[in-house]
């Protein structure tokens, strides 16, 4: 399977997603200020959320900046902790009309805005690997449909196949300008107690990899108030969320989907 997916690139020893995203991350290190110092904050920040989530694969396994820096390279510049988990399992959420949802036992969550954008061309020809990726236009479409601005977002659930994916996605949505990620992530902004919680289940880096449904179902459950010890609000010294932004992307940053959800 890995060999088939790699096509003729296998002749050059190029396989799989780690190296594809690592190529993007390396170019980003050259184009703007980023690298392990930035990505370390994403890996350790999300791990703090995982340690509040008994269902997370990495529950009970704290990760320090030193652990991150001392872990070996898989495909440089990516270390082990830059990469998502490999998981068996499943996630689902049920979609119905608002009218019907109001009559159900659980608190429903509304879809405010959706946007997709797919730059699409193969990774060798990519001129978007350091942004803007599909996140920029997909985000603009979703914000437009929702009729809100980025200032109204209370938390984010970002597709985090790799740490760099979180950085470039938040950057393209407009949370910070290119290269300002290292400063933005500092002081634990995405962590429990932070101003902009990100990937509050631990995400795919530290909870489980269920493709786009890891972020989406976490957003739904947070807005429903079903997240126990990791629940956004007073329990985690964060704002009780009204609106959560979710992302999903595919291939090597070649497709992007943005969803904005809110509490009913």
């Amino acid at each position: 399977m890995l060999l088939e997916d790699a096509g003729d690139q296998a002749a050059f020893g190029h396989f799989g997603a780690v190296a594809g995203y690592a190529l993007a991350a390396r170019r980003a290190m050259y184009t703007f200020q980023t690298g392990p110092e930035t990505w370390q904050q994403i890996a350790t920040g999300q791990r703090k959320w995982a340690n509040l989530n008994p269902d997370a694969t990495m529950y009970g396994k704290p990760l320090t900046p030193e652990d991150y820096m001392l872990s070996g390279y898989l495909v440089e510049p990516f270390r082990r902790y830059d990469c998502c988990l490999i998981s068996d399992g499943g996630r689902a959420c049920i979609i119905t009309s608002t009218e019907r949802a109001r009559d159900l036992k659980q608190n429903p969550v509304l879809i405010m805005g959706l946007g997709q954008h797919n730059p699409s061309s193969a990774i060798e020809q990519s001129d978007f690997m350091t942004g803007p990726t599909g996140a920029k236009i997909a985000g603009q479409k979703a914000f437009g449909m929702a009729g809100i601005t980025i200032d109204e977002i209370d938390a984010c659930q970002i597709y985090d196949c790799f740490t760099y994916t979180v950085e470039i996605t938040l950057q393209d949505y407009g949370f910070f300008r290119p290269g300002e990620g290292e400063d933005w992530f500092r002081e634990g902004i995405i962590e429990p107690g932070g101003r902009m919680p990100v990937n509050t289940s631990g995400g795919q880096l530290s909870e489980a990899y269920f493709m786009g449904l890891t972020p989406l179902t976490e957003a739904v459950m947070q807005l429903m108030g079903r997240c126990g010890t990791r629940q956004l609000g007073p329990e985690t010294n964060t704002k009780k969320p009204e609106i959560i932004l979710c992302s999903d992307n595919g291939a090597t940053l070649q497709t992007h989907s943005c969803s904005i959800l809110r509490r009913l």
Partner: protein
Amino acid sequence: MTYKKPLPNPTPDTRTFWKQCKNHRLTFQKCNDCGHVRWPPALICPRCHSVSHESIESSGRGTVFTFVVYHQAFHPAFHEDLPYIVAIIKLKEGPQFLSNIVGCDPDQVSCDMSVELVWEDINEDFSLPKFQPASR
């Protein structure tokens, strides 16, 4: 010694490319209508959808757009090469091509450094276009 690494698998689109590689010629399709030099090979131009094209030979000169260093072998035959470099080369003629940087310590590679083509004859059927730091 038998060559154990994966081989290219020519398709109707890529057959000519690999055949020319065997002759140590790195060739690309150039659109006869808009002039776009494309990779990978295809029936129609991705820019203007023209089906008319000619074959051009690349100078083999370009720069490193980006690169990674494999520290883990995802196929056993690459184990002995670790650490090895995979890079996207931006060729002078326009296309970006994924290959290896050889004859160079991973610490010496950087984005936008100049590289030149070097051929690796791997068996009777295939030669792989690889790149090394430019000599001038």
